[in-house]
């Protein structure tokens, strides 16, 4: 039901309402939604106990006009957004009920956060707003993502996502600049971007994720649009590449006479906790007990926002996902049981260590 409620970034209202209804049914405290519509519920522990946040982003990359109907097979759930991150949101909504059904009393507070505006232009807007304005101190955090199974992230890469748009003006003088449409000029920009040196250490990459341009076979393209991402283990490298891209755009615009626009969509700063951090070791221990093979790597999710606020955090994956972020997205059902068990297990372990969490 969570997954069938569309929640494109900035338009998550219905999903938040559904989440808050579930929190209400579970009897959580301080159920509310804030100015950017994050859905919040609080499970209090003993007085003075530390607070662990469990967060899942509610938004998906799919527009409301796309059918969100799910289909179910013996071991698969298929539907848009199911892996990223409707499953995470659904588990977040169910966790308070599961804790109650298992009669688990935690020696800490748990702050359940359904965060909005995470993806694309949302740029982690929900979690950033919440952490910038939080009245409740958060000591540690667990972020939930539908997939992949065994995901264990505790570092965040430096990242910048941008969009470059080329527009050929109506009064463009083709006789002066040559018969080139927007696609050719954008191609020029892309070639130059690939010439920017990318060090192998710190590891750095430039990804061209989406390219759109023109309308038909025989008309010169009037517009072209590139979406790309730069990521690196070093903030300075990302900043350097961003600066170089800015210069390339200025140069191509000056030489070609077309209009070029650069829009910085989102960014993350590099950071994280060490492999030896007790939170990471706790997660690894629980995963080992459940025979879950940890897949360690950096993350671009809410983790980055927690890290930026010096809150130790991890991201955990709940099941095996396939074709994530496509119209054929699907997740496997059986691993979800272990995926949820690992979250409960980590909460129980943190509860045992509650004296050391602050």
């Amino acid at each position, binding site marked *: *039901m969570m997954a*069938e409620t569309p929640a494109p970034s900035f338009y998550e209202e219905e999903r938040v309402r559904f989440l808050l209804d579930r929190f209400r049914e579970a009897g959580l405290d301080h159920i509310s939604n804030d100015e950017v519509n994050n859905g919040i519920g609080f499970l209090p522990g003993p007085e003075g106990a530390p607070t662990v946040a469990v967060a899942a982003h509610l938004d998906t990359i799919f527009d409301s006009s796309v059918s969100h*109907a799910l*289909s179910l097979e*013996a071991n698969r759930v298929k539907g848009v957004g199911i892996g990223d991150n409707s499953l995470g949101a659904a588990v977040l909504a169910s966790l308070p009920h599961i804790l109650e059904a298992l009669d688990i009393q935690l020696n800490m507070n748990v702050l359940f956060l359904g965060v909005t505006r995470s993806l694309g232009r949302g740029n982690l807007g929900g979690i950033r707003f919440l952490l910038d304005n939080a009245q409740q101190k958060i000591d540690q955090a667990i972020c939930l993502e539908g997939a992949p199974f065994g995901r264990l992230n505790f570092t965040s890469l430096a990242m910048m996502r941008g969009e470059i748009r080329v527009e050929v003006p109506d009064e463009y003088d083709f006789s002066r600049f040559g018969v080139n449409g927007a696609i050719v000029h954008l191609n020029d920009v892309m070639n130059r971007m690939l010439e920017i040196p990318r060090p192998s250490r710190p590891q750095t990459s430039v990804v061209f994720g989406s390219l759109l341009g023109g309308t038909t076979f025989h008309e010169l393209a009037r517009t072209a649009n590139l979406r790309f991402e730069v990521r690196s283990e070093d903030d300075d490298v990302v900043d350097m590449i961003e600066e170089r891209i800015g210069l390339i755009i200025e140069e191509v615009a000056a030489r070609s006479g077309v209009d070029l626009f650069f829009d910085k969509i989102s960014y993350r700063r590099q950071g994280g906790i060490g492999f030896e951090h007790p939170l990471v070791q706790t997660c690894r221990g629980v995963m080992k007990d459940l025979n879950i093979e940890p897949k360690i790597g950096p993350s671009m999710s809410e983790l980055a926002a927690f890290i930026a606020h010096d809150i130790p955090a991890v991201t955990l994956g709940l099941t095996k996902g396939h074709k994530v972020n496509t119209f054929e997205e699907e997740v496997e059902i059986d691993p979800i049981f272990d995926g949820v068990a690992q979250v409960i297990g980590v909460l129980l372990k943190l509860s045992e260590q509650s004296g050391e969490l602050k």
Partner: protein
Amino acid sequence: MIIDDWLETNSFHHSEFWDLKKLVADKEKQNLKISLCIPTLNEEKTIGKEIVIFKSELMTRYPLIDEIAVVDSGSKDKTLEIAESFGADTYFSGDILKDEGFKRGKGENLWKAIHQLTGDIIVYVDADITNIHPRFVTGLVAPLIYQPETKYVKAFYDRPLAFSQGIRPSGGGRVTEILTRPLFSLFFPELTALMQPLSGEYAVRREVLHEIAFPIGYGVEISHLIDVYTKWGLYAFAQTDLDKRVHRNQATRDLGKMAFGILQAFLNRTEQLDMIEVKSEVSKILRQFQVNGTQIEQNEITIVEEERPPMITVDAYREKFGL
């Protein structure tokens, strides 16, 4: 203006029944048992989700339904396997009341379910709904729980092709608007108030279900309406707006078959009620035509609306329920 009064008191929107805690409490106070029946034939694509949603929301979270049963006409796909894996009771219609034989048809499954299921209320929900939601059950059961005089609750849906003002068309399907509503207007004007008389989702009290006959094919819904109306009147009915229902769209040719079956059942009923007299034997063959190149081809489809008697007349049923 009985229709206006009835629409005022017996037409609902599912959102009026949002308080499931109260609904369950009222159900328990009346000591009612509710069974959900999903008739199937090759529905492997949608059946799993229906079972999961109804079981998790209306059995585990809110104990409104006491049993979920899939009654199948002989699927060749994995319908029963999937339904069973998600926790439904599954039955092949032919295995229920074996002495009565087996006929292939949705009405047969609905009729057999009366014997097999144990609820005081049986809710029938089709298996081909892709946007399934608990409201498909709660919206139908609630009027029976809250209004003791209500016996039979029908679903209706929005079909917003396009409308810009506050008024929507009645929302019937093509067969409803072209065949059923004109027939009702001629013979049973009060029944025109039912927005979608042919919808496959309804909840009914057992004491009504076992008193009415069941055509096994397309005519089951229209026969029910006429039988319940003539026995108990318009106020035995209620209807609930369940918003959108997304399902397979049927080809016009298939709707022709459906209309043929419905018309047969309607003629049977009106003749039994002495409202019309059919002086000669009517044909059971539907003739449809198609052009293949320059040839006109004729398809002859035999559609016989066989009928099962009221369940109360079956000995094994009376014995099982001590009647």
